[in-house]
């Protein structure tokens, strides 16, 4: 939402010029009333209301919060339902936001990010007649044993499967024999990418007898390069410069918007490319200047998962059974190569497709301690 203010100010300036437009034909009072909404939402509402709570990243994080938010707006447009959203600026607000959603009469409330696990679990237990969903985490009790709730659906992703393919691709494409990855913070939703990536590199080495190095992550120790947050692109830039100095020519940043720092660093060196995460980075407007540097993207279709969950709930078919995005159901995947289409050897492309088929068929299992 940080975009809103500057956008609003610019809009205000523009509006003084545009204020001479013609009034719409029908009475627009309905839209005007919606924003007050105070009285209407207090009581029982027959309409379906879908609600979304962000974690600290906020909706404009160019990553999973934003994807989930897109799912919500898509549902609003396509399904004609009421939607509400609340951004959290720190963990102290998770509970307050969840309570406010219940107060506002939300039929389905989706929490984005594993950080909201406890919060969603608590409100779900307190409100058995309402439905909930949680992106990126299953539910567990105090001893970390998994629990299942009747009215809360985990939306999970086997991201390591897609990241594995990206690692294999990177190992096949590197000129220097070194690739690298780093994360924002050691959250499971981050390290799952890194696990798959280094496994993919190792698989390539095994299959082709090469010795491609993957910097930045040690899967055994579950330890590696972290920039410390999901906002400071300068850290991403510096980390990437360091990797390039160490000989890496393909970088996988798993830190949302911080990845644009990697693009900036890559642009300063010949032959360095970046693998984007979550959404297709080639098509992100923010990356327009650097899209020719994006080798591919590890896709994680949070938007689809959120939309589908809302869609099912609207149709009265909510089920608490976990959704797991896989290569098989398209919940995760590898984006097109775009500008690199010609650069990636057909042979390598065929190998990756073959691996994908093996994973889908269950012949090849990619594991991660962070996978659910």
């Amino acid at each position: 939402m940080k975009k809103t203010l500057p956008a609003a100010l610019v809009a205000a300036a523009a509006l003084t010029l545009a204020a001479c437009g013609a009034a719409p034909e029908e009475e627009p009072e309905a839209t005007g009333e919606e924003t007050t909404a105070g009285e209407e939402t207090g009581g029982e509402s027959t309409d379906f209301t879908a609600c979304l709570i962000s974690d600290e990243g906020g909706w404009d994080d160019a990553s999973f919060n934003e994807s989930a938010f897109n799912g919500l707006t898509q549902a609003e447009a396509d399904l004609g339902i009421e939607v509400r959203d609340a951004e959290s600026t720190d963990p102290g607000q998770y509970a307050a936001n969840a309570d406010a959603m219940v107060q506002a009469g939300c039929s389905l409330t989706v929490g984005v990010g594993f950080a909201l696990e406890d919060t969603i679990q608590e409100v779900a237990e307190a409100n058995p007649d309402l439905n909930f969903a949680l992106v990126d985490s299953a539910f567990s009790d105090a001893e970390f044993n998994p629990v299942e709730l009747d009215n809360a659906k985990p939306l999970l992703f086997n991201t390591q499967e897609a990241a594995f393919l990206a690692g294999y691709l990177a190992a096949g494409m590197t000129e220097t024999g070194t690739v690298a990855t780093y994360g924002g913070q050691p959250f499971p939703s981050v390290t799952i990418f890194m696990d798959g990536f280094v496994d993919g590199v190792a698989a390539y080495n095994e299959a082709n007898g090469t010795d491609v190095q993957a910097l930045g992550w040690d899967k055994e120790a579950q330890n590696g390069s972290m920039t410390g947050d999901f906002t400071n692109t300068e850290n991403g830039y510096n980390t990437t410069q360091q990797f390039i100095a160490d000989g890496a020519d393909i970088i996988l940043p798993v830190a949302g918007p911080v990845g644009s720092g990697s693009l900036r660093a890559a642009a300063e060196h010949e032959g360095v490319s970046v693998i984007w995460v979550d959404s297709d980075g080639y098509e992100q407007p923010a990356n327009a200047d650097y899209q020719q540097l994006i080798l591919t993207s590890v896709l994680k279709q949070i938007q689809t998962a959120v939309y589908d969950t809302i869609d099912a709930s609207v149709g009265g078919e909510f089920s608490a059974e976990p959704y797991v995005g896989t290569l098989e159901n398209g919940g995760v995947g590898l984006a097109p190569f775009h500008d690199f289409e010609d650069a990636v050897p057909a042979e390598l492309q065929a190998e990756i497709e073959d691996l994908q088929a093996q994973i889908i068929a269950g012949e090849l299992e990619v594991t991660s301690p962070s996978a659910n």
Partner: protein
Amino acid sequence: MSENNDGREKPERTGAQPDAAQPDADAPSQAAAPQQPEAHTEAEPDGRGPEDSGRARRAAQAPAVPDTSPRPHPVDDGPTSSQARWATFRHEMLTGSWLLTLLAIVAALVISSVLIAVADADVRASAGYFFARPADLLSAAWSSIAGTYVALFRGSVFDYTVLTGGGVAELGRAISPLTKTMVEATPLILAALGIGIGFRSGLFNIGAQGQVLMGAATASLVGFTFVPPGTGPFSSLLHLVLALGAAVLVGGLWAGIAGILKARTGANEVIVTIMLNWIATYLVAYLLTTAVYRVQANRPIAPHVAETAELPSLLGSWSPLHWGFPLALLAALGVWWLMERSTIGFQFRAVGANMHAARTAGISVNRVFVMVMVTAGMLAGAGGAMQILGVEGTFRASSAGTIGFDAITVALLGRNRSGGIVAAAMLFGALRAGAALMQTVADTPVDIILVIQAVIVLFIAAPPLVRTLFRLPDPQRTRVAARAKEATR
């Protein structure tokens, strides 16, 4: 703008301003005079007019004269007709610092209204055909502004919508937003009290964030590790005291580092405390990935604290209010006593008023630096513990939120006094508590709340600006005029 400069040149001219402006006066040695023990209303030691602008002179005589008598006013000297008394009353009203604070808040709300309206999609849409049908814009603007503030009120004070005419339980739910505000205010009160002590002692302590974080981390660690056998009230009390005590201790030690560095080496406490914030941030982030916090499944989140370590609920399950709030009020009372009534507090204030004079008077300035920082850190550490033991239960790297930085604002807004800090923390707590409903019901961007906070502080920091906006008399100028009139008589 000229008002602004005016205020800066003569910061101690008005009773309203000195403490708010004071910490900005960079070096502590320079941060001298305005500190004096004026409470909100008393303020002006009359008779020392504008001609007495020598900081050192005033500082030297300052600690000895805690003038608590009501402000004598020139008009009092005249005939005590009811008209004159009314004039005095009116003057007190219009120049009192609390009025300026209130008006600053009002002005902030007005400015925020404009932003709320502009940020609203319907308002923007209807502005497109403003000249064709102006009523649309006005009604859209009105509904977005009213909706936002109504949601703020419902979320932070009283939710009238749950009242349908039945029972006490309903009333409980209606006032539960107010208790949420108290919960949000609790850590702010504690951290701001610590910062306020620092400001009044001439130490600009930016380190509350790190101290809050260290306190929270410690409370969590003790909360889930040293679980006493049994769940009786005794073991619960023991565990709670242990967790709180450890948090207070670690917070104090953490801040003490800055105090010792300042006392021993003369290091600038601003730089040291900022750096300690970063050290705390990354230390905690690192510890959360290690076995210290028993991380499971690769999650940098500490386990939930044991039930015995949780701060018990004060009012029952309908309200999130916990015992931390009364404890914070007790702390406010304690800090008031410390600063206004105890010898140590006198030394703190003396050092804040004039370090060199205090040293000459035989006060160990270095010892005071350390003691001030340790006290501030203990309070901030307690604030962090409240967040874990009373609200969140689980500790994570971002558990401290922005408490430590908000607390600086709260201390400034409360003019470093216990009562003011409690009131300011309630205001900020209300803004935080109301944020959820503002977003969900009124569709207001969360940033607007930050804007309101920032604008309030902006106005608080510039009393002449508020006076000009609301055409209030300048207390200094009116007094000079009155005296001039007296002289000519």
